[in-house]
């Protein structure tokens, strides 16, 4: 049994999720706690919100970012607002010709991302530099067939599944704050990853909960998403 307070890295939603009945387990890297014991696979297929804020991720920015990432074996192309699945199950989000964000797989294995961070040297003069997105942005996942209807209440973008295909990215305003929304289905379940300012995470979480209320208002957790992943 672990608690968020045992670690220096904590999700900004720890109090809200504990009140909602979350149990806590250590992340695979052991550097934070992540919520567990929330939701069901059926709820996740209908509509559920999951907090992955303590999961590993990193960004890179700079004019030579795309070739620098390709050199490191990351699967990506220089197409802005497209996501690319990685062989380990992670995601590479190409935000612009000069910026990417890498999300860890649901297993939470941070070996590859940690190595990217550790191996970067200013002296290499590659014209790409790391951005510590794990600190600046909270990470939510909204899963389920009702997700596009829920988003229609808080965002001007058309997220209907036939209009916003798998691996599309929208950098936009959701509930009046800037957010990066990426559709990356988990198994056969529609899934929208949201990265938004961590300082506004509680406000944003409240907005998601409010918008989700009419659809059942369910929370889920990483273990449920992994169940979706395995079918």
């Amino acid at each position, binding site marked *: 049994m672990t608690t968020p307070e045992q670690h220096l890295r904590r999700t900004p939603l720890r109090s809200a999720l504990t009140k909602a009945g979350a149990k806590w387990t250590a992340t695979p890297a052991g550097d934070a706690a992540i919520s567990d014991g929330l939701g069901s696979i059926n709820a996740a297929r209908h509509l559920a919100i999951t907090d992955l804020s303590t999961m590993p991720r990193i960004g890179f920015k700079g004019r030579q970012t795309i070739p620098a990432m390709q050199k490191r074996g990351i699967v990506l192309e220089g197409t802005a607002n497209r996501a690319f699945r990685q062989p380990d199950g992670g995601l590479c989000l190409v935000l612009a010709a000069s910026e990417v964000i890498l999300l860890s797989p649901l297993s939470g294995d941070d070996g590859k991302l940690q190595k990217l961070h550790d191996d970067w040297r200013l002296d290499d003069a590659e014209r790409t530099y790391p951005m510590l997105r794990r600190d600046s942005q909270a990470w939510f996942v909204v899963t389920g067939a009702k997700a596009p209807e829920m988003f229609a209440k808080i965002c*001007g973008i058309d997220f209907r599944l036939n209009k916003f295909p798998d691996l599309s990215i*929208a950098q936009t*305003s959701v509930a009046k704050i800037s957010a990066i929304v990426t559709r990356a289905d988990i198994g056969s379940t529609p899934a929208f990853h949201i990265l938004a300012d961590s300082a506004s995470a509680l406000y944003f979480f409240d907005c998601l909960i409010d918008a989700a209320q009419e659809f059942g208002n369910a929370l889920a957790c990483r273990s449920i998403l992994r169940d979706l992943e395995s079918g």
Partner: protein
Amino acid sequence: MKILNCPLNGPRNISEFVWGGEMKPMPDPATATDAQWTDFLFLEDNTAGEITEWWLHAPTNYWFIARRNTLTDEIIETMTYDAYLARQKANASGEAEPAAKPTTGGTETGATSA
């Protein structure tokens, strides 16, 4: 809600954008007088008609160029800064407009605010 077409992100609600002021050449900082520098930084021409402006898509922090009619508030077109420079260069040399295509912007829709 007015829709503005971002060259990077496509059509978005106008509430996602920030006006960045008129596009104007920067005086040489080494030789400009205080009056010239003040004029560049703070004073707008307030032209009635078609003007070229900077706009920012705030969620991506992406700056681009728009041509807008200040009498009708119609956004005539938007383009990347590179496309704008290419057009300026072509105009200066008297050539036809370059292939870099601006995007059309400024339609009115009934979309709700985000």
